[in-house]
Structures are given as C-alpha cells and as structure tokens.
C-alpha cells in the first residue's frame, strides 16, 4: 500500500517556521500522491518557504503563477496532459487566502469544467505569510492584525466561510476535510483522489504556531483539539455515496482548544467571555449537524 512506504518528496532545508503545520501537511500529501504528480501552487506560505530562487524543496514538478489563478494554471496543465495522453495527477496546493478569497473564482471555473484536478487547500485560517491578516477562513472571535481584539472589538466579527459546502454546490466528485493531526486519514483521502476522475476538493486544517500563538511543539496537539471539540468537522463526501464523518468519542469543551492560543487570549476573561460561549455554540451545532 502506498501509505506504508516512507517516501519523502519535500526536501529538508525549506524555510518554514519551526513547527509549521503546512509543512507537515505538504509532506503527508506528497507521500500519498507519489512521484507521478504535477503540483501547482498559489502564492502563500508554502510557495514562499519552498521556493527561494535555486533552492526549491520540491522533488516533484511544481509551478507557481499568481495568487488568484492556480486553478486556471492547473486547468491548462491538465488539458495539455490530456492532449498528450499522459497520465499524471494534477494537484493544486493553495492556502486558505488563495482558496477562500482570492482564487475562488478560478477554482469555481475549474469545478464547472469538470476537469480532472485535485484542489487541496491547507487552511491555516489567515494570511500568515504576509503577517497574519484575517481571511474569510479566519474563525469567529479570532484576533488577527486586521481584526484585532481590544476594547472596541472581540476579534473577527464574521463567521468562517463554509468552503467545502461551496465546493459541494458545484456537484464535484469528491469533497473532504482532513487534519494534519490524523495523518492516516489525510493520506487515505489524498490517495483516494487518484482513483476518481473529475474535480476533487480537500481542505486540510493546519495549525500555525506564529499566527495562532502557541508553542512550536504543540502543532499536532492543537490540531487534535480542534477536531475533538467539534470546531473542525472531519468528513468526506463521495458522489453518490452517503457522507462519512469522523466520530469523536469524548468531546472536549472548546475552552480546552482556545486557552492554548494567543489569538483567543482575550476571550478567556472579562466581558468578552460570552464570545467563547458563542464559539461553543458553533461546536455544538457542528456536532449536531454532522453527527460527530
């Protein structure tokens, strides 16, 4: 089985921060995909830390174009491969900024054309590469440099955009969410996309030590807590099959997750504490909606 071999397609020496969740996601994704893959990346953390000139960390063919058009570039690559009758998986690896905000139009077009491309979004819930600006993937109540918490505000006022639901609305063949804290699950889902012809969307939850404000050794622990509290539901929807949801036996209160992170520090005491209760309500809703 593909998961058993320990092939490493992301070379050491890349410049991700110590404890980077996105780098862990990349290694797991590439391990599941194997060498016969062409990767297109939008601008973002991954693009920046893997590709200083002459010092690429990629060991598969990789192309970077602009922030907004990774799905369009991948469409071109896939069309060319199809014309040449060559079989390689074409994969877009893009951050939440390049998926939820800037590249959403191009991604929607790619889904509409029903092209055989896997779109993987590593979701670190803000624009980390440029200095933690809020994106539409930033969760409710979280403090970033553009949604700062203070006397006048409790952090981000809007809720997180439900991107997998938007992908599902395009009637794509496979939609899944995953987390780096559950590597077997993530690699199984990524490997599955190789068997399905058509557009696929996977959203991977990747904690960020700098942007979220926790110790670099806690990346996986935080990722686990996000799933165990019900804030980040893990599921997959294959066309024509019922939704499969990762069940959590002992659910934890969301405070367990919030208290480790500086971006939620303002919710721990004082008058903004009721915002934490509202985040708990989001978790409860997720648990009910997905049957976690």
């Amino acid at each position, binding site marked *: 089985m593909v998961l058993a071999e*320990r092939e*490493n397609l*992301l*070379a*050491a*020496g*890349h*410049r*991700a921060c*110590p*404890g*980077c*969740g996105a*780098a*862990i996601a990349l*290694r*797991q994704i590439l391990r599941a995909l194997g060498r016969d893959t062409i990767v297109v990346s939008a601008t973002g953390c991954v693009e920046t830390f*893997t590709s*200083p*000139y*002459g*010092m*690429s*960390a*990629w*060991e*598969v063919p990789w192309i970077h174009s602009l922030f907004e058009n990774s799905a369009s570039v991948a469409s071109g690559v896939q069309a060319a491969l199809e014309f040449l009758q060559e079989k390689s998986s074409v994969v877009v690896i893009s951050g939440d900024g390049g998926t939820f905000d800037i590249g959403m139009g191009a991604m929607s077009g790619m889904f509409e054309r029903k092209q055989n491309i896997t779109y993987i979004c590593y979701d670190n819930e803000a624009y980390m590469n440029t200095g933690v600006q809020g994106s539409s993937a930033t969760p409710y109540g979280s403090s970033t440099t553009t949604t700062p918490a203070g006397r006048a505000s409790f952090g981000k006022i809007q809720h997180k955009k439900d991107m997998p639901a938007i992908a599902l609305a395009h009637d794509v063949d496979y939609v899944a969410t995953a987390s*780096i804290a559950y*590597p077997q699950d993530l690699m199984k889902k990524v490997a599955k996309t190789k068997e399905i012809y058509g557009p696929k969307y996977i959203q991977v939850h990747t904690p960020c*030590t700098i942007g979220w404000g926790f*110790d*670099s*050794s*806690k*990346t*996986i*622990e935080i990722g686990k807590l996000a799933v165990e509290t019900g804030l980040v539901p893990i599921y997959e929807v294959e066309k024509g099959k019922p939704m499969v949801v990762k069940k959590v036996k002992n659910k934890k209160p969301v405070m367990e997750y919030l208290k480790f992170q500086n971006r939620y520090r303002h919710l721990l005491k004082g008058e903004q504490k009721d915002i934490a209760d509202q985040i708990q309500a989001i978790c409860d809703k997720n648990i009910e909606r997905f049957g976690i």
Partner: protein
Amino acid sequence: MIGAVCKAAGSLQYKTGTWRDNRPEVNDNCNGCGICETFCPDSCITIENKKCIIDYDYCKGCGICANECVRKAIVMREERK
C-alpha cells in the same frame, strides 16, 4: 512574463539546523514506530533499524517529535553553541 526553472531539492544547500535553540535527543526507549517521522515538518527524521535518526543539519528544534512520542524516547535539551 518572467519564468525561471531550478533543480529539485536545491533547498538542501541551506542548512536550517543553525536556527535551533533546543536539540532533540533520542534515548533507548525508541522502537522506530515512525510517529516522529510522520509529524516532522522539516523532513529531517529517518527510521533505520527500528531507531529514529535525526539530521541535525536541518532540524529546527521545534519539539513536535518530543511532544508526540508516545514512548518518551525523544527529549529536548537546550543547545549550547
């Protein structure tokens, strides 16, 4: 439009090990299960002969391996240079 092509794995010429403050050290509890290898963001752990081997040229010392090891086989020590 400007394009550029460069060779694969050129990043190996940049030794990120110099960033490290704390150094992971492997003790005898290690049975080579590979959890640390799966979670290492810097691709600097390999499993050989049921033992994990850390490449200190590239290890940034994040401490994920020590935190996730179920057998407490990796301990972080402050690095003195």
